[in-house]
């Protein structure tokens, strides 16, 4: 059984009819990131995307899933075959995770959301079902609509279904904690470091891979400090900052307030919001044209702007 590009799905047709071609419309998932991008204009129709896993082919490492499906349900199904995806596990839906485009805090072990979306099907502002990308891991067949739609906050189209790349769950994962090891030295010492979380006092590090490789990593870490096994942490909360990884070496200068930083990645979960410079004029022009091309009447998720955290 192989995935086909445009298998007819009445659930998606129905979704396209609901979205229609007129009037302000927004798609809600589980509203775990509902405030990202700014407040929704009042009097906007709010719809839900269709649900369900359409096709899972573990040996191809791909899964076709409708946007309204919860990430939890998806990952429960994939786990039965020893796989997962890069989508963050924080109670949301697949469509919400793709629309927001933020990565899981375990990104170093799971990959990034934008590389995981191989194909996207979305309903356009004109009410038409559009397909971009394809069901294979490698693909340069035309312009990359999946990358455009991922992280576009529903401002360019209403995500109906995606094909995601899946990855094998590592044989072993172990979380360790240390209060006296330099988190940057940990990052430098490991060949393929897992997530490293640091709040200025305590460092949590996840090691993953074959059991012998994890054991060897633990040996490498011993010279850097004292480490104890600990439970896997839940996802850090707070305002989300995105900074170059090198900027984490002087977090105090960032004025984050209390923080949890993803070392080597550059995401900071902080007490204070990040103030970010506006896009430069050339980039802004492309953004405005993109929005006008895909949503000429500005009916898709009005009020939301990409880049507003």
């Amino acid at each position: 059984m192989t995935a086909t590009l445009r298998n007819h799905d009445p659930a998606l047709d129905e979704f396209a009819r609901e979205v229609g071609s007129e009037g302000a419309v927004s798609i809600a998932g589980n509203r775990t990131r509902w405030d990202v991008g700014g407040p929704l204009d009042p009097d906007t129709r709010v719809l839900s995307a269709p649900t369900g896993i359409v096709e899972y082919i573990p040996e191809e490492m791909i899964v076709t899933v409708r946007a309204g499906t919860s990430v939890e349900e998806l990952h429960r199904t994939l786990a039965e075959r020893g796989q997962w995806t890069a989508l963050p596990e924080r109670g949301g839906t697949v469509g919400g995770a793709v629309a927001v485009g933020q990565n899981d805090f375990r990104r170093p072990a799971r990959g990034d959301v934008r590389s995981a979306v191989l194909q996207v099907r979305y309903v356009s502002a004109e009410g038409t079902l559009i397909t971009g990308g394809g069901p294979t891991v490698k693909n340069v067949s035309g312009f990359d609509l999946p990358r455009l739609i991922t992280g576009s906050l529903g401002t360019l189209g209403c995500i109906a279904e995606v094909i995601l790349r899946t990855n094998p769950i590592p044989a072993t994962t172990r979380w360790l904690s240390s209060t006296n090891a330099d988190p940057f030295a940990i990052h430098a010492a490991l060949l393929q470091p897992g997530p490293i979380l640091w709040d200025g006092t305590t460092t949590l590090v996840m090691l993953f891979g074959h059991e012998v490789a994890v054991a060897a990593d633990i040996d490498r870490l011993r010279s850097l400090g004292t480490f104890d096994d600990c439970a896997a942490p839940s996802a850090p909360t707070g305002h989300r900052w995105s900074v170059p990884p090198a900027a984490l070496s002087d977090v105090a200068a960032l004025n984050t307030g209390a923080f949890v930083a993803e070392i080597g990645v550059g995401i900071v979960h902080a007490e204070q919001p990040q103030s970010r410079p506006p896009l430069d004029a050339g980039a802004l022009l492309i953004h405005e044209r993109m929005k006008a091309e895909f949503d000429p009447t500005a009916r898709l998720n009005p009020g939301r702007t990409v880049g507003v955290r």
Partner: protein
Amino acid sequence: MSLLDRFRDRVGSGSATSGDPLVDDLRAVLSPDRVKTDGAQRSLLGKDASVFDGGSAGPICYPISTNEVVDIMQVAQRHDRAVVPRGAGTGLAGGAIPLGAPIVVAVTKMRSIGEIDEANGVAWVEPGVINLDLTRHLTPLGYHFAPDPSSQQVCTIGGNVANNSGGPHCLAYGVTNSHVAAIEIVTPSGDVVMLGGLDPEPDGYDLRGIFIGSEGTLGIATKVAVRLTKNRPAVRTLLLSFASVRDAANTVSDVIAAGIVPAAMEVMDQRITEAVENYVGAGYPTNAAAVLLAEVDGPEEGIDIDADRIAEIGRANNATMVRVAADNTERALLWKGRKTAFGAVAQIAPDYYLHDTVVPRSALADVLDEIYAIADRHDLLIMNVFHAGDGNLHPLIVFDGRDEGVLERVHAAGGEIIEASLAAGGVLSGEHGIGVEKQKYMDRLFSDADLDHQNRLRRAFDPVCRANPGKILPMGHSCADIQQLRSVPTGVWG
């Protein structure tokens, strides 16, 4: 004025010599010796490494800075000319072939490797830097650039960005899009814009992501922040022989199904193996129907678990021989064989047409059977050497272009290979791109509405189709209409 008339107009009527206002303006912003108009240069840069001809280069510019690229773009605007960026010209789908005598912007003199920013995990390079030069530069520092296309000795980073290039080791590490953090581009409007950034989640739409693989149609890359990949301390390279291509393909499928993602899995059939052995003596068995080159890498601890498992899966699929490269010399020789495969076929016939499609891994064996049958039907010699782990097929049709009618048969067979790949649930291209080669197949994969949306994406960058017109999207979809200008009117830049 019709679209075609506008493009005709843009082609202009200047002669190839100085005195042409376009050339004069270009020479005024670059040094005169870096604007070429002679026939030999224009003929050379009218082609790429594909079998497609019919390209027609206008003036050829060799900028050395971002500002010069901006200047060229502004001259192009004033004269309403198209602009085609170009790296080393190793593309196989005709993406760099200039259509309608545009200004060709060859970035090959922009080849400096700038700051190596280890703290942010990137190196800033210019687009003309050669892929292998970059990796050689990074190796002593403990890093490399992961995409390693077969043309890596000559292809440029700018070209890699344009085609979202892959290579054998992209199975585990991902293609170019996973290895570029930021790109400075000159837009078709002449703005300098930074796409992406060194932070992990830059604001706005993923313009960096969509620029990569856009085949020069969204602007010209002038600086690229490439990601540094740490060198692996341990590598195991396995060579497995099989009595049938099907057994090799099934091994690949079973390895992935077992949850192992090796660094690389490459399959070569007997014909190509023989050619390679005659050419470089890489140590491949020539009596096997297929060989599988599989590589795992990472920390020393645990590496043999995956290597042993791959060997076991191979044996379960009737491998007639399993060998692990004893040392770096043997490993390098095995890879040399794989990477010189396309050079090796020159001893068999003077011409080849290398295809590029992707199919589901589980369909590899069936599609390969079909490809051999297609070759038989058209009385052609076909060889297969491919990135099996990704399902990325590279059927190689070997022929002598002097044989009467052979090109028609080559193209007919090529079309059938594409159809067979699509029928198996595959896609048109894994790493070579669409260029001019596969435009006519785009509507087999996408509806008119889908293609319209791709065109909207393009227009957001380039409303007037200034950058590399006539590529990717098929006829009838806006910019593609310039294709009709492949026959440039007599007396102009023909």
